[in-house]
């Protein structure tokens, strides 16, 4: 567990209210993530899911505890971590291409030529199927397309850890399904570690290796961790009939309904369960993925 790729260790987070009092949003959040794993964080609105992601991104500093990535503590945003924001957060005055280019320039201007950078921007836009509209500005494309560009921008940073904050929350079901499929494809080929906040149970089960269920705030914590033992690649239609899928779905729903409105500390049993779940993770072969990344990039 100590040599895990990404460790969130005993993180507590206090916010200062405008009146000067403090508000404890997170209390003792613990999570260990292996390389290449897909983690979903699910929980009721306002419980602190975004806060967890922001701490991992380095945008917030945990009040207590900390985040360790590859053995080093995270204290600020870094090149290994990219974020897909809840409301796309594209710069409205730049085209899709320029939005991605901004990230690429910042990261690679010293080791890539102009032509290489252009190819890299276009490559990432093609990963999310946005080549056709890459010279349009955000206000000229649909919500789903904006979210795609946001993903391309994050991917272009070649992150080891990709953080996604309710990336498909505001989209219609069909668009969401398309983007979920794209995301699975991308993860299969690039092998990034993914942490995604969602409030959609089906989405969590379909995409995740593990689902982290958070208790309600204030002082929210990890309530329960559920292993999703579905084989990959996953096809949404086939999977929907499998007993494991329905079992997982049921578990998550049960948790969400039980905890609704109640503030509960995680029980020792929960902690044991999460440890077991972690040991069950079957690491995907990292070498295999590296070569794939290289193939994609060349």
């Amino acid at each position, binding site marked *: 567990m100590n040599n895990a790729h990404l460790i969130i260790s005993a993180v507590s987070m206090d916010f200062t209210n405008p009146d000067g009092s403090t508000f404890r949003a997170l209390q003792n959040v613990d999570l260990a993530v292996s390389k290449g794993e897909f983690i979903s964080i699910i929980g009721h609105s306002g419980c602190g899911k975004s806060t967890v992601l*922001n701490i991992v*991104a*380095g*945008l917030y500093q945990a009040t207590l505890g900390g985040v360790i990535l590859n053995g080093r503590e995270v204290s*600020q*945003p*870094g*090149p290994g*971590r*990219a*974020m897909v*924001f809840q*409301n796309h*957060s594209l*710069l*409205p*005055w*730049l085209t899709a291409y320029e939005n991605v280019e*901004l*990230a690429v320039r*910042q*990261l690679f201007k010293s080791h890539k030529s102009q032509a290489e950078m252009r190819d890299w921007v276009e490559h990432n836009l093609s990963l999310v199927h946005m080549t056709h509209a890459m010279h349009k*500005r955000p*206000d000229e494309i649909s919500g789903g397309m904006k979210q795609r560009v946001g993903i391309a921008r994050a991917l272009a*940073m070649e992150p080891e850890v990709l953080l996604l904050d309710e990336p498909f929350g505001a989209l219609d079901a069909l668009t969401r399904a398309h983007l979920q499929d794209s995301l699975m494809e991308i993860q299969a080929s690039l092998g990034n570690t993914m942490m995604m906040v969602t409030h959609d149970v089906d989405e969590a089960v379909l995409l995740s290796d593990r689902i982290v269920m958070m208790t309600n705030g204030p002082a929210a914590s990890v309530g329960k961790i559920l292993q999703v033992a579905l084989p990959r690649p996953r096809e949404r239609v086939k999977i929907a009939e499998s007993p494991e899928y329905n079992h997982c779905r049921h578990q998550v729903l049960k948790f969400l309904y039980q905890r609704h409105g109640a503030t509960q500390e995680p029980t020792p049993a929960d902690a044991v369960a999460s440890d077991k779940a972690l040991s069950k993770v079957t690491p995907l072969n990292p070498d295999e993925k590296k070569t794939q990344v290289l193939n994609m990039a060349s």
Partner: protein
Amino acid sequence: MNTQVMNDRPVLLDRLALNLGSKPIAWLRALAAPASGILLFLLIWHLAAPTVVTSLGTVPGPVQVYQQFRALVAEHRAERQKEKAFYLRQEKRNAIKLAKNPDTRIRIRKYTGNPTFFDQIVTSIYTVMAGFLLASLIAIPIGIVAGLSKPVYAAINPLVQIFKPVSPLAWLPIVTMIVSASYVTDDPWFEKSFLNSAITVLLCSLWPTIISTAVGVTNVSKDLQNVSRVLRLNWWTHVRKIVLPSAIPMIFTGLRLSLGIAWMVLIAAEMLSQNPGLGKFVWDEFQNGSSNSLGRIMVAVIVIGLIGFLLDRIMLLLQRKVSWDKSVALR
């Protein structure tokens, strides 16, 4: 009633200018309301003016004011004729001198006629633009830095709050003293009077731009600031790609306020210090006290208003050119 119509005028003119460029029919319809507003105003003016008697006779109506305008145009033409004639005579004289003795050193003397109304307009516009542009060049960077850094903002804020309400009339003596003490050259690039006016304008038009720019910069959306941090943009890229585009609307709000103030301040400064420009024209006519003076001052008032309005429109056009969001309602 009279003031009511006056208050409506800028709005009407606003609509008028905004709707240019659409189809002719829509054009006419758009023009109908503003035109009737102006006509009504002229009518009331025409009827009310003769009833007010001053020491210089009755207050001129629109017709007399228009006649004064024509007279000012005629004076301007006459003055230009005189100037031309002056230089022609001088050239002829010089040619004769040269013919007698090729070694004569020719000195070209400048024409020193009185500046006409239109010369004063040019001087005023030139001065206001100089003061305003310089003020903007100083104020926008200060505003950006103040908006980005809380300590800088805290340091600057009290100064801005104290200097902002200072009337131009209070600045003027200080500026005049300092300029005459420190600007001593034999071959001046600028007239001292120009410097006095321009610096006074500058001092009064700094503040709205600083404040608006700082507010615009502080209000850059939290999401975009997070994007900038996750992408780890360096300071300069952050300012160029995120801060400036976000703050453009507020910067222009400040610039338009500043330019409005600059124009008002300039006229006042010119009146007070007898510096060349429209303000001096008004003051001279007031001192002159002929039967035409009131009419001529009214011409100046209307021209001052029109130029102020035009300056604001130019800023709007500039904003539309610079802003990424062409759809925002620009008013």
